[in-house]
């Protein structure tokens, strides 16, 4: 029996987002969506967190910070890229200072596209992320070296999730 899926604590980092996605992330925590139902708490501290929510694209300024937050989170952990900017850079993709999506610096487990991403989609991504979390926990318990997860292996691939978002809308 694993408890990690019952108590995923998140940390939310705003890379260079326009705050649109951030507002949606916070909306999940509000009474309307109340993610605490699933035991989700916004910790604001990488050392306590299991799920890393990143909004906005990664640039030269913040790439070290993103990396360090990721490194400071104890295993097992998953990363969720929220919003199209976090997925691949979005409309800023070709800008001189933008490196691209979050996956250019750290391995990402789930993508939530959208501009802005909808709360339902965010929750869905976190919940799908829990499956990966469980796999990683087992790997950790068995003492296996953790492999870098393939982006394709992620349950919520960009297109699917986008469609899901549409359906829900």
């Amino acid at each position, binding site marked *: 029996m694993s408890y990690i899926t019952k108590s995923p604590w998140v940390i939310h980092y705003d890379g260079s987002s326009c705050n649109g996605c951030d507002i949606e992330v916070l909306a999940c925590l509000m009474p309307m969506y109340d993610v605490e139902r699933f*035991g989700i708490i916004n910790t604001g*501290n990488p*050392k306590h967190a299991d799920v890393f929510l990143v909004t906005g694209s990664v640039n030269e300024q913040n790439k070290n910070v993103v990396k360090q937050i990721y490194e400071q989170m104890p295993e097992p952990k998953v990363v969720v890229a929220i919003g199209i900017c976090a997925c691949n850079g979005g409309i800023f993709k070709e800008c001189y200072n933008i490196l691209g999506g979050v996956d250019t610096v750290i391995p990402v487990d789930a993508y939530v596209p959208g501009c802005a991403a909808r709360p339902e989609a965010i929750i869905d991504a976190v919940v799908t992320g829990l499956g990966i979390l469980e796999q990683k926990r087992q790997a950790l318990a068995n003492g296996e070296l953790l492999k870098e997860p393939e982006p394709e292996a992620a349950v919520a691939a960009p297109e699917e999730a986008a469609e899901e978002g549409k359906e829900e809308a």
Partner: protein
Amino acid sequence: MVKVIIAVIAYIILAPIVGGFLAGLDRKITARMQGRVGPPVLQPFYDVLKLLEKESITVNRVQDFYVMCFFIFVIVTGCFFFAGENLLLVMFTLTLASVFLIVAAFSSNSPYAEVGAERELLQMLAYEPMVLITCVGFYMFTGSFEVGQIMLSTKMPFPYLIGIFLGFIFILTIKFRKSPFDLSMSHHAHQELVAGLKTEFSGKTLAMLEAAHWYENVFLLGMVFLFFVNGTWWGYVIGIVDVLLTYFLEILIDNSFARMKWQVAINSSWIVAVVLGTVNLFMLMFVR
């Protein structure tokens, strides 16, 4: 002697269960007060069990040792209390435990942890006088510091110690880490201080900290219970009902106050200690 051993073992086994359950209830009630559904009542257990599954990391070689000492001595505190030992011994052991926690946070030399540690220290400065006055109040009323002797009292201490009771409830807000005095761990305001004192604790260490709080809370509620014993069964009933009411009151306070500055914490709790505590002690001098 057998009774004492049973009480201690029962405390060691049951306190985390009761404490965790109360914490779950707290979260549920809080959620309802905020118009949310809230997590399952067993959520605190899930959290702690999850923390045990996490990777072990730390920031230096000593921090987790101090937290372990905190955990051990909080349990020892409760054991002394439920074994019917001297109240002052109980409180001094609790202080020892708190000092270990503070030193743990200091030892990391992390900015957020250290600010949290300073605030925790300040909270100690704020509640300590009232806690000691409470012990003295029990002594003056029952003639003994021994919890075992106080339990045998045939008169209910509450009516005579009402000022001290109110003062104790007041500082209980600090001890339970509730708003408006949730200064050191910032449960509700992590944007201000990350996680304060516990910023650098993770995994098993954090689990230990949570469990220690459950032990501590049960012991503190035991203190509240002590105000109502009168040697009869209905005294026990009133005691338990009042413990639950007190707990509910703390949740209500938590949800209806904003967090306040540290100056408010120390000023108000010292004023309470001087006014309610001291006046009550002087009254007791005439009663006895």
